[in-house]
C-alpha cells in the first residue's frame, strides 16, 4: 500500500516536472575553431560540467576546422539571423569582430556585476598583456581563452657541444650560430622561424615599434600602417644577414603553411634553434624526448640595439553575440567565466601549452610545483608578465589585418630571396598594406 502510494507520488512528480524542465532548458550554443579531441574535447567537458551545475542551461560546443572557416560561417549565420551565443575569433580579426556589429562587449554585458550564476568575475585577475589586448575603448571586450606567445626553442645537444649559452639577443644568436656551425657535426642550418606575420609583429613589438597609427589603432581607428618603421627595417636586415651567412633556414612557406616546415626542420635536427608559438610547448618538449635531444624553451631573442620592451600575445578570444535574450546571455557569460576560472585556466594550460591567463591560475600552478617540474611551460607566461605594456606591446587592432599579414610575409620572402634593400621592400609593403586598410575602412568605417 505504502509502496504503491510512493510510486504514484513519484510518477506524478516526474510527469509534472519533466515537461517543465524540457521547456525551460536554455540553449547556449558556442562555436570554436578546434576539432581535435584535446581542445574541442576540453571545451565540451567543461560545458557538460557547467550544465550539471546549472540544470536549467544546455551549453553546446561546436567545433570548426580553423579560424578562417569559423569566420566565414559566422558571417553567413549573421546574414541568416542564426548566430550562436558565443563565437571564437582569432586576434587579428578583432577589428573585424568590432566592426561587424555582431558582438557585445563583455564589460557591457556584465554591467558591473561581480558574479554571474555564482561564477566570480574579477577581470583584474587576467594578466596585463592579455587584458591589454582585449580591452578596446577602455572596455573589456571579449573573453581571452587560448593565448600564446612567440618563444625560442633550443636543441641543447648542439648548444652544449658548441659550448654556448641560449642566446637572448640577435647578436647572441649570431655568435651562437658561429660556434654551432663550426661544429664537426653541425646541423644544416643554425635556426629557423615560421614566416608567419605574427613573428614580424613580435619582433617589432620587442623593439617598441608600432604597427599602425592612432596608437596601434587603439585610440582611434587605424588609418595608416607603419610596420614598425625603423624597427621593421632592423628586423628585415637582421634576417637577411642571417640568411646570407647561411645560419637562417627559410623553407619558402608563408603563413599557415610555415608552421609545419619549422616542425620538420627542428624535429629532424636540421636546425639547432627555432622560434615558435608557445601553444606547442608540450609537442616540442616531447619531440626532443622522443628523438634523444634536450629541448629548452626561452624568451624570443630581441634586438640588443633597442632593448626588450615586451612581447605581444597571440591566439584567440571568445566573443559574446549581441542581442541575446537576457537569460541566454547570462548563461553564455557564466560559461565563459567558468572555463576561465583559476582551476580551468590552469588545466587548459597543462593540456595544451597555451598560457595560464589568470594570475590566480599561475599562482595555483606554481603552488602545485608544475612550473618547477616543467620549466618550458613557464617561459611564455613569464615573457608576457614581464613585458612592459606599451602601445607597441599591446598589439595592433586594424582592419584587413589577415590580408596585411600576407603582405608582410611577402616582404620577408622578398628580402630573404632577392638583393633588394630592406628599406625599399618595407616601403612597398607599407604601400600595399595601406591600400588594403584604406579599402577596408571605405567599406566598414561609419
Amino acid at each position, binding site marked *: 500500500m505504502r509502496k504503491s502510494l510512493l510510486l504514484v507520488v513519484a510518477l506524478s512528480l516526474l510527469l509534472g516536472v519533466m515537461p517543465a524542465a524540457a521547456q525551460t532548458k536554455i540553449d547556449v550554443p558556442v562555436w570554436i575553431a578546434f576539432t581535435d579531441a584535446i581542445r574541442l574535447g576540453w571545451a565540451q567537458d567543461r560545458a557538460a560540467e557547467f550544465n550539471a551545475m546549472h540544470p536549467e542551461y544546455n551549453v553546446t560546443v561546436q567545433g570548426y576546422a580553423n579560424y578562417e572557416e569559423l569566420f*566565414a560561417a559566422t558571417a553567413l549565420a549573421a546574414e541568416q539571423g542564426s548566430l550562436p551565443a558565443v563565437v571564437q575569433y582569432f586576434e587579428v580579426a578583432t577589428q573585424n569582430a568590432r566592426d*561587424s556589429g555582431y558582438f557585445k562587449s563583455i564589460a557591457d554585458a556584465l554591467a558591473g556585476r561581480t558574479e554571474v550564476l555564482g561564477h566570480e568575475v574579477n577581470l583584474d585577475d587576467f594578466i596585463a598583456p592579455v587584458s591589454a589586448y582585449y580591452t578596446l575603448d577602455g572596455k573589456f571586450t571579449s573573453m581571452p581563452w587560448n593565448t600564446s606567445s612567440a618563444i625560442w626553442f633550443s636543441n641543447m645537444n648542439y648548444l652544449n657541444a658548441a659550448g654556448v649559452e641560449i642566446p637572448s639577443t640577435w647578436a647572441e644568436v649570431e655568435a651562437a650560430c658561429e660556434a654551432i656551425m663550426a661544429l664537426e657535426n653541425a646541423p644544416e642550418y643554425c635556426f629557423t622561424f615560421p614566416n608567419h606575420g605574427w613573428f614580424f609583429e613580435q619582433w617589432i613589438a620587442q623593439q617598441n615599434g608600432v604597427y599602425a597609427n592612432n596608437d596601434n589603432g587603439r585610440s582611434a581607428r587605424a588609418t595608416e600602417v607603419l610596420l614598425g618603421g625603423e624597427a621593421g627595417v632592423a628586423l628585415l636586415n637582421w634576417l637577411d644577414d642571417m640568411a646570407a651567412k647561411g645560419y637562417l633556414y627559410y623553407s619558402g612557406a608563408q*603563413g599557415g603553411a610555415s608552421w609545419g616546415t619549422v616542425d*620538420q626542420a627542428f624535429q*629532424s635536427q636540421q636546425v639547432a634553434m627555432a622560434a615558435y608559438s608557445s601553444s606547442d610547448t608540450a609537442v616540442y618538449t616531447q619531440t626532443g624526448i622522443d628523438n634523444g635531444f634536450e629541448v629548452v624553451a626561452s624568451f624570443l631573442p630581441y634586438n640588443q640595439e633597442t632593448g626588450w620592451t615586451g612581447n605581444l600575445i597571440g591566439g584567440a578570444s571568445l566573443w559574446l553575440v549581441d542581442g541575446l535574450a537576457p537569460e541566454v546571455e547570462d548563461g553564455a557569460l557564466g560559461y565563459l567565466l567558468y572555463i576561465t576560472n583559476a582551476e580551468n585556466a590552469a588545466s587548459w594550460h597543462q593540456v595544451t601549452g597555451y598560457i595560464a591567463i589568470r594570475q590566480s591560475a599561475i599562482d595555483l600552478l606554481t603552488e602545485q610545483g608544475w612550473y618547477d617540474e616543467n620549466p618550458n611551460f613557464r617561459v611564455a607566461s613569464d615573457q608576457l608578465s614581464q613585458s612592459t605594456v606599451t602601445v607597441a606591446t599591446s598589439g595592433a587592432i586594424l582592419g584587413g589585418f589577415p*590580408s596585411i599579414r600576407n603582405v608582410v610575409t611577402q616582404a620577408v620572402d622578398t628580402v630573404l630571396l632577392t638583393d633588394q634593400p630592406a628599406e625599399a621592400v618595407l616601403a612597398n609593403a607599407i604601400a600595399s598594406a595601406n591600400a588594403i586598410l584604406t579599402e577596408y575602412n571605405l*567599406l566598414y568605417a561609419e
Partner: protein
Amino acid sequence: MQFLVIGMIAVVGAAYLARRFSQSGLKPAFGAVVGAVVGMIGSAALMIPLDWCTFDPDRTATDMGFGILLMAATAALALGATGWIAGNLAARRTVFSGGTQPGTFKGWLTPWILLAPTIGVLALFLYYPSLDTFRLSTLLALLGAPRTRFICVDNFTRLATDTVYLNSVATTILISIAIVVISLVLSLFIASMVYLPIKGASVYRTLLIWPYAISPAVAGVIFLLLFNPTGGIINYALNNLFGLRIPWLNDPAWAPWAVIIASVWKSLGYNILFYLAGLQNVPKDLIEAAAIDGANALQRFRQVVLPMLSPITFFLVITNMTYAFFETFGTIDYLTGGGPLNSTTTMMYNIFLVGIRNNDLGKAAAQSIVLFVLVIGFTVLQFRTAGQRVTYGA
C-alpha cells in the same frame, strides 16, 4: 564621347552586315539597317549596366580606352552572331539543328520537362554565379563587409600595373607549356615502350596509370615530402649520390620545376592511357608497308605513327592545357603555396590568394573574368591553328 563611339560602331556594323547580307543573297540595304541597330545595341550591352561610367569626366584615359574596347568587343560579338544566323537563314537551314530526325520528341513539353532538372541546376549553380561574377568585378567588395562600393572598371584597369598579377600571367604560360610538352613527350615515349609485347605488360600498364587516380592535393602532399629541402628523400638521395642539395621549394628558380615535375607525374597516367589506345589503332599494314619501302624504326615512327596519333595529341594538348591552367591548383597549394617570391603563383592560384586569402571578392572576380576570356580565346586559337593540321583517319 560615348555617342560618337556608338555612331562609329553603328557605321562599321552597317557596312559589315550589308556585305554579309549581299554575300548571302539578301538585300544589302536591309543588312545595313540591321547592322546599325545591332551595332548600337551590341556596343551598349555592357555599358548600360555599367552606366557609361568609363566616360565619366573624372576617369583616366586608360579607363576610357578600356570602355571603348569593351564596346567594340561586345558589338563585334553581336554583329558576328547576327551575320552567321542571317547567312544560315538565307541558305534555308535551320539555325541550330539539322531538321527532324528519327527519335525526336513530337511535342515541345516533354523534352523541356526532361531537361528542366539539369537546366535548373546549371542555372542555379553555374549561370547565376557566373553572371554575378560580372557584377562583383565592378565592385569594391570584401567578404563579410556590410556594404560594397561601385568602382567601375578599376578592378580591371589596375591589373595592367599590378606586377604580381602580370608575373602570374607569365608564370602560368611558362608552367603550362612546360607541363604539356614534357608530359606529352614523356608519355608518348613510355606508351611506345609499354606497347611492346612483353611478359606481364598488363600488370605494369596498370601500375603506370595509377598516378592519375590520385587527387592533385594528394600529389602535392606526396611531393612536399619528397622535395622537402631539409628532410626530403630526393635531396637525401641527391646528396648521397652527387653531393647535391637542391633548394626545391625555397628558391624561385627551382620551385616552378617542383610544381612541373609533380604535375607531369600526375597527368602521365592519363596521357599514357590515351596514347596506348592510339597506338593500338595505328593500322599494322601501314607500318609494314613503310618497312617494306625501307623506312627504319625512327622514320616509321615519325612518318607514320606520329601523324596517325595527331588527333589524340591534339585532344591531349587541349585537356592537358586545361589541366595545367585549372587543376594544378591543389598541387601548388600543398607544395609551394604560390611562393617563393610568387614564382609558382599561377593566374588560377592568384585568384584564390586574392579572393579567399584576402577576402577581396571584387578583384578576384575581375581576375577570373580575364582568365575566362583568355581560356576561350586560347581554345578558339587552338582549334583554328592546330586543328587544321590534324589527320582524322588515313
